[in-house]
């Protein structure tokens, strides 16, 4: 009897952990910084109906989403996912297919895309996450290329030509002009959710487990972390929001085809963004994605540089890897250590 009464107080905190965890997250200033960033993204282009700014921020929001979710696997667990764009592309295909063939409403289609791609990722993850290091990295390229080749031959999804959306699909949202604004707000919401998710995972026991795997997987396993389950779960979670954003993004562009949806270069650019901002840092991934996207906008519109976009991105990545593996946040954390707590 003595034992069970002793055990009770230990069980009690565990029961309220979920609730306490949310309260704890909400009381952190960083959470409110994320929310503020989301509001700024949503409100700024509304000023004077600035469509050009909206388009630029939309791309940035897409990349912030991709980079933050990649950071969960790459930054926390230390697994190089070269094929991370496969989630974005598959999500896009599922969503566009549901919208154009089955006349589903956009939000429902995007959510189904997120859930189904997440489940598929869980399945893949259980297989390829048995591989480590370079082998895993190669397998992720294989998964992306295999799915790209499959979709290019899959007739219901339009094969190599892809799917074109007719203008009718924008009618339920009040015509194409209105629809673009709605899609923009949805993407910004997904971006904000990605940042909150990254932060919540980092602050949780699950996130600590992932970080332990990233440090030393064998030691983590010895300490009782169920490493296969943690990794597969992280891989699956990191697929959810990119798939949704993929759906929204290709709904906006009105066309999806295999080489655009499963573009390995975009995948790698996402890795560049995470490295640029600072691997493993929530702020870093977001900042890296934003800066890289703006930098690329400048390079593409500058005559002298537009041909050398890839070269400059490559040199940038090479420089970071060789000389500043901590990225921007690595520098900031070293310079102002007190910011480490505020900017996760």
């Amino acid at each position: 009897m003595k034992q069970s009464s002793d055990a009770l107080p230990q069980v009690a905190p565990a029961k309220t952990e979920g609730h306490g965890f949310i309260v704890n997250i909400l009381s952190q200033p960083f959470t409110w910084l994320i929310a503020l960033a989301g509001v700024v993204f949503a409100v700024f282009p509304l000023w004077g109906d600035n469509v050009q700014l909206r388009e630029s921020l939309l791309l940035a929001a897409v990349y912030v989403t991709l980079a933050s979710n990649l950071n969960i696997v790459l930054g926390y667990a230390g697994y190089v996912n070269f094929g991370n764009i496969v989630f974005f592309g598959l999500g896009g295909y599922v969503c566009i297919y549901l919208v154009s063939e089955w006349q589903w409403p956009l939000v429902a289609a995007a959510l189904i895309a997120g859930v189904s791609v997440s489940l598929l990722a869980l399945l893949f993850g259980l297989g390829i996450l048995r591989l480590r290091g370079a082998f895993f990295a190669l397998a992720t390229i294989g998964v992306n290329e295999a799915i790209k080749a499959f979709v290019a031959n899959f007739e219901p999804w339009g094969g190599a030509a892809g799917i074109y959306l007719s203008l009718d699909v924008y009618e339920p949202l009040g015509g194409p002009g209105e629809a673009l604004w709605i899609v923009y707000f949805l993407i910004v919401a997904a971006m904000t959710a990605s940042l909150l998710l990254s932060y919540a995972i980092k602050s949780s026991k699950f996130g600590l487990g992932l970080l332990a795997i990233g440090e030393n997987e064998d030691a983590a396993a010895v300490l009782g972390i169920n490493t296969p389950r943690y990794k597969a779960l992280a891989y699956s979670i990191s697929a959810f929001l990119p798939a949704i954003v993929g759906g929204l993004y290709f709904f906006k562009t009105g066309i999806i085809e295999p080489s655009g949806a499963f573009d390995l270069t975009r995948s790698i650019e996402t890795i560049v963004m995470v490295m640029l901002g600072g691997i493993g840092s929530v702020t870093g991934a977001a900042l890296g994605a934003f800066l890289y996207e703006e930098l690329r906008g400048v390079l593409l519109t500058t005559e002298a540089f537009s041909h050398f976009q890839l070269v400059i991105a490559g040199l940038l990545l090479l420089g970071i890897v060789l000389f500043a593996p901590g990225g921007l946040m690595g520098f900031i954390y070293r310079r102002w250590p007190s910011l480490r707590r505020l900017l996760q």
Partner: protein
Amino acid sequence: MIGIIASIIDGLLVGAVYGLAAMGLTLIWGVMNVINLTHGAMIVLGMFALYFLASALGLPAYGAVPVTIVVGFVFGVMVYWIAVHRVIGRAHLMSLLSTFAMNMVLVGLGTALFSTSPYNVPVAVSGITWEGYTFTGTHIMAAMLALAIAGLLYLLLHKTRIGKAIRAVADNREAAELNGIPTTQVLSFAFGLGAALACVSGTLIATLFPFTVLSGGAYELKSFVVTVLGGLGNPAGALLGGVALGLIEGVTTPFMPVSWIPIIEFLLFIAALILFPRGIFAFSRA
């Protein structure tokens, strides 16, 4: 039936070239545990080297082969000192990213210089006709050269001092260093050797098919498949893996649209990675 046999033989011939390309990848992995993601760029370098030597300078196509080996070697040593040297022994992430970054720079430069339009080097070698099927002369020639170069690599690795040093460093770098082997130079030499193999196989591929600046990616992926089939770090296995991939392509081509072949290759790749992480032909390490 003869059609299928002819298709299989042709697949084996092309497969030998794939095997040669993969040997470059697998050699670098075996010696320094680095996946060389500039592999595709090096293959493309070989293709364009042939284009310039044959079209611009008027060299005979097969006369360009020794030159591209030297070009590839010099280029590989350069890439080693720029992108690889500082990341040796660090996490895999770093070497994957640094070689990939280098690849982006090279592909970007190539695209800016040559655009992405297709190039073609016409090579005339008379083929062999058998039962109404003609085996293209270039395919036979490429396979022969690939096997000859693979043989030379074997001799280099097993019969020369530098080859012994490479194998010693692959086995245990510290022990090699303690025995007075200048391991850093050996590593850069091995990287150059791997690059030279990729480069010369690119030259051989360019005698078979048209190519663009972006062709490297497809052949790099083929090399990964081959490497995984043969076991990472195992040059002899890579050659067998290449022939196996050629065989698979040869067998499947008559029965299904060409566009489905990559799917089979990648499924095979992932299955082989998971089921046989040491390779299907994992017997001896060179």
